[in-house]
């Protein structure tokens, strides 16, 4: 078929301070096609989306529109050139009517010409009809369901003559019947010649609706704009997860004779986990593997007492416990959690290195009347900061000014200082460079050798295989099986994929 691409990205690179997020990525979008953009967290997917939509400018490489080189200086620029995007978060004005939301762009031409709402409603109707949206254009958006809000955003993008439409996880908050309706509409848009980009973690949906696919891994193409024909779920997963690398550092350790530090038996949670059983022994690193959305971080937060455990039993050091709050987990049970989202959950960016490293131990160090001196915190925390080689001009430096790797070291240091017996490490190497990552891996191994029980959550298969003693595979908020790590990449990745793949599939 002779179709020339509407939009192409050629050899696009994007460097952020300390990290090369994209290392020369290609993608080409054809008219009348639905193109899947896949990749695990940190693979560079969101950076690529931001470049296509004009939020970031590429460090090197070229964007082409209809074969002509194009630069988007701002999101507005990209919109004006026909690149529409429907973000995961809603960009609507809830108190405004549907019609006004769709056509706000047009009003923005003048400041003082009175708005003719009747005309606005008339102009909005065709776009709503095109999407089978049976709503009065005068309805305030706040009265619509999430699914309909999303369709309104699509209508808005279409009314701006978008020829390329990016949908970032459009089904994340939709029910299955809403998803079906959305797909019907997307197919129709495709048949009308729009080029759609579908970003999703749900591979079944990708297989159902997409005709072409680009997979990113570690900031590079794992596959580039190929046809979906003949590609099955297993191949997609394999491309996302990738091949062996850096698993060499793994060494065999047997901790089966050690006491159990954390033991979950048939645990259900308020977030939807069912019958989760896993144990972590003293000095053991247990990996919790799964694709994004499998419920791993959610399980970690439930263990830490942020969300309720509704069934089954949690035992810490052999004794059944009910952990009602994060404070209780930290102070009474000596548990720690290194968040994947260190910027918003792990660290207080405006505060000093010392203050951050000291937060969990403040209570322990507090003297009479709860007073606390910097000197006492420094005495406990600074050996760990030195040991981790945190590069900071002084302990008074605010954490926000340090690199991602150093920030991550501080979030590890603060739990070391707290002397925890059980540590959950969630996606520890997101956003840090390879050298720091290797160092971090050594550190986690050393921690375990010294007796800390570690639950490692990672979407990176090589990281899993380099660190874990045993790997629990999670999918759809359930444990799908256990794999004992042998350090052999091909074998383990194969077995893990089988666990995910064997999961009961929704009837096709």
């Amino acid at each position: 078929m002779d179709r020339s691409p509407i939009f192409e990205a050629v050899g696009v690179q994007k460097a952020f301070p300390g990290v090369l997020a994209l290392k020369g990525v290609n993608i080409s979008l054809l008219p009348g096609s639905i193109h899947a953009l896949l990749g695990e967290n940190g693979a560079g997917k969101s950076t690529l989306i931001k470049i296509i939509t004009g939020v970031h400018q590429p460090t090197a490489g070229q964007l082409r529109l209809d074969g002509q080189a194009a630069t988007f200086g701002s999101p507005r620029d990209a919109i004006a050139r026909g690149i529409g995007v429907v973000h995961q978060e809603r960009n609507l004005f809830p108190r405004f009517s549907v019609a006004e939301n769709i056509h706000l762009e047009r009003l923005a031409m003048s400041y003082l010409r009175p708005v003719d709402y009747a005309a606005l409603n008339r102009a909005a109707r065709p776009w709503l009809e095109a999407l089978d949206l049976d709503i009065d254009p005068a309805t305030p958006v706040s009265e619509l369901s999430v699914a309909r809000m999303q369709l309104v955003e699509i209508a808005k993008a279409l009314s701006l003559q978008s020829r390329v439409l990016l949908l970032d996880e459009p089904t994340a908050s939709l029910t299955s019947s809403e998803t079906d309706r959305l797909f019907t509409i997307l197919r129709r848009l495709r048949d009308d010649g729009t080029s759609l980009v579908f970003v999703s973690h749900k591979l079944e949906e990708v297989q159902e609706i997409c005709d072409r696919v680009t997979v990113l891994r570690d900031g590079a193409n794992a596959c580039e704009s190929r046809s979906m024909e003949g590609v099955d779920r297993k191949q997609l997963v394999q491309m996302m997860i990738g091949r062996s690398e850096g698993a060499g550092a793994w060494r065999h350790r047997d901790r089966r004779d050690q006491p159990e530090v954390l033991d979950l038996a048939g645990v259900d949670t308020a977030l939807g986990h069912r019958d989760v059983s896993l144990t972590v022994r003293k000095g053991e690193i247990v990996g919790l593997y799964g694709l994004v959305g499998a419920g791993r971080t959610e399980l970690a937060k439930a263990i830490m007492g942020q969300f309720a455990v509704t069934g089954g039993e949690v035992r810490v050091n052999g004794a059944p416990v009910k952990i009602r709050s994060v404070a209780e987990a930290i102070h009474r049970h000596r548990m720690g959690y290194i968040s994947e989202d260190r910027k918003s959950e792990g660290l207080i960016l405006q505060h000093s290195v010392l203050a951050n490293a000291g937060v969990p131990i403040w209570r322990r160090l507090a003297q009479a009347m709860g007073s606390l001196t910097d000197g006492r915190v420094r005495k406990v925390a600074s050996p760990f900061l030195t040991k981790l080689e945190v590069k900071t001009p002084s302990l008074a430096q605010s954490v926000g000014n340090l690199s991602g790797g150093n920030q991550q070291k501080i979030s590890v240091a603060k739990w070391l200082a707290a002397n925890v017996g059980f540590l959950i490490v969630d996606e520890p190497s997101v956003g840090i460079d390879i050298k720091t990552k290797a160092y971090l891996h050594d550190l986690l191994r050393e921690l375990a050798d010294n007796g800390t029980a570690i639950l490692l959550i990672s979407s990176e298969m090589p990281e899993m295989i380099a660190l874990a003693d045993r790997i629990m595979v999670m999918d759809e908020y359930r444990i799908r099986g256990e794999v004992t790590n042998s350090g052999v990449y091909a074998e383990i990745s194969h077995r893990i994929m089988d666990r995910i793949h064997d999961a009961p599939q929704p009837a096709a």
Partner: protein
Amino acid sequence: MTNLARLSRTDWFGPLLATILAVLLIQSLSANFLSAYNIQILLLAIAVNALVAYSQMIIIAIGQMNLSVGAIGGLAAISFAGAMEVWGLPAPLALTFALLIGLGCGALNGVLIRITGISAFVITLATLSIFKGINLGITEAQPFYGIPEGVKRFGGAVLVGPVPWLLVPTLLVTAILWFTLRRLPVGRFILAVGSNDHAAGLSGISVGRTVIIAHAISGLLAAIAGVLVVARLQIGQPSIGDDWLILSFAAPVIGGAILAGGHVSTTATFLGVVIVAIITQALVLFSIDPFLVQVVLGVLILAAVGLNKLRAGAATGGR
């Protein structure tokens, strides 16, 4: 949805109901309440306070706050009086001068917020002090007494029955503001920016310009209020505006404004002003300590914010 449920979702219904109930209750306790004299005093208070409330409301609409409302009003008031007494300007010219001062002060707030990226709270706290300082520097804390007869007459005149002339500019401003926020793109931009400035920018709205315009309007409204107070008091008091701040927040909030921005109602804010005026008046009527007015205002703000929160929860979570 029944009609009553629909009504209860509008911003003005609750305050209107409260107003009517308050009037009935107070009238039943004190027959003097609805005397012509009392009504006139009420309307005079409403005339000025509504402008003060609008001045804050337009800033609440963009999701910010303006602590310098009173300082701008005070500076405009003494500029108005001073221009007439010291420079001997005729009243219309002095009025224009004062309004330009207000507009300029407001625009300055907006520009500073936009250029520095510092929060409106801090910027207007600083300009509050600056404007007030200029005011005291010019007046040396002494009032201007040389107000022309024409202005004094306007301040005391009644239009019909107990309705004072002073209420006329306020009602005009109310209508214009209502139309602006409902029908003019600039009003919609202000609400859009307050609701989600990122999305507003993506829709082609100049967020910076909108913020500056909103602050300029706020300054202008505060200046009009200042001028009206001069006409009513018949002197240019340097202390004009000192006690506006709490009221400026109370009325919009009672009128259902969302402090995070994106939603305000002109009519409901006006009713908020009416409620505050009625309660203040009632406390005077029953010879209750006037300092209690402050306490009541505070309680009203808390109650209104709580109520708004409940309503917001019902609107989004109740589906």
